[in-house]
């Protein structure tokens, strides 16, 4: 089946099995290796991408269901001012350790802040509740998102 969508702003067409995981198409066909496979069953969030601005687990998304959608991976997002705000805030707060979960957390932060630019701590924890980090203990990540939200004129 031919499937059309945009990835990081570029229109693409793939001719593939529609049940292939979006994760595999993004990594193997497009080389976006910032999309990680952790659990492979929608529990850990390492494979998170944005589909039409909403956070989605690419490991349980059949590529055929994103026909006509706009997909954003960390590689596309990193060229934005918002990314730089989150990057700086995460560095300052110590929100990154091994880095495997980080692309997912950054995109979860974006998905949250674009809807809710001034989230409470509870709302931040809710927003990242689909993502697991086994290094930081989450405090640094939550702190980082709080700081990023304070960036003037970004959200």
């Amino acid at each position, binding site marked *: 089946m031919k499937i059309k969508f945009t990835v990081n702003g570029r229109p693409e067409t793939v001719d593939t099995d529609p049940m292939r995981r979006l994760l*595999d198409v993004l990594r193997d066909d497009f080389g976006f290796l910032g999309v990680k496979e952790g659990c492979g069953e929608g*529990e850990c969030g390492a494979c998170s991408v944005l589909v039409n601005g909403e956070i989605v687990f690419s490991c*349980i998304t*059949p590529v055929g269901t994103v026909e006509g959608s706009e997909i954003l991976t960390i590689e596309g997002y990193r060229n934005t001012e918002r990314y730089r705000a989150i990057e700086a805030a995460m560095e300052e707060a110590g929100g990154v350790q091994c880095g495997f979960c980080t692309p997912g957390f950054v995109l979860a932060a974006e998905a949250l802040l674009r809807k809710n630019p001034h989230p409470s701590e509870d709302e931040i924890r809710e927003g990242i509740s*689909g993502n697991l980090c086994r290094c930081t203990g989450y405090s640094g990540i939550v702190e980082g998102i709080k700081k990023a939200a304070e960036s003037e004129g970004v959200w």
Partner: protein
Amino acid sequence: MVTQNVVYRPGSLEEAYRLRTDTGALPLAGGTDLMVRYRKTAGLVPDPGRPVLFIGHLKDLRRVEERAEEVRIGSCTTYTELLSQKAVPEILKRCITLLASPPIRNRGTVGGNICNSSPAGDTLPVLHALECSLVLGNIRGERTVPIDRFITGPGENALSEDEILKEIVIPKAAFSGWCYRKIGTRRANALAKISFAGLYLIESGEVHDIRIAIGAVAPTVVRSREIEKTIIRIPRTSLQRSTVEMAARYRPLIRPITDQRSTTGYRAGVTLVLIEQFLTAVLQKKG
């Protein structure tokens, strides 16, 4: 030899019905359950072993319509979409905010939760308590089935090979309050050990309506209209002393299993406590 899945992406509900009749393809809405069920080793394509019918994109299945007597929810409406709809009952919204995680709620659908028919399906006790009915369609027409007659066992339901779940119909009813509780190991992404939905209506000091539905403690959702009847219209003063006794009437209906998530004893014990706490709260309400 790697074989490709046979997948259909119909342009309309009509075409979906036809494809379902002709091929018996498996309907897939968000895929959050099916992609896990049919997953293979990392990198390999999930393979359900039968044709697949994508229906999640169909506008006719992705809508919420409020009518005078009922709210009709398209089966492929995502959980996230339901949260933004005024017409969706608060108890269902509460249940959804405790269901999985935001990325799952952006893709998962209430129709999928129903057709998956897991005893631990989070929305099921709520939909039972609300006395929902389901509109099942095929190429020839539609039929409507109450949810408690649709789900017949773990993973088993009354959906025919040529049918698609089209709508969930929630009748409007007056309630004084509601309660939804989910017992799980952690707040996000937990599969329920027990889920509990309670609704009640109190008028002039009497319980006029009470509905208790419990998930994950039997092959299908537990609800007993017989026990509920013993609570309705009895003056609250005479009920007050016996909430533990009333909860104990549910004991024969609570038949949980021991699995990786919990044990028979824990589930049965905690379920009775949840019922008792709900009854106590109801009886203490002013009204």
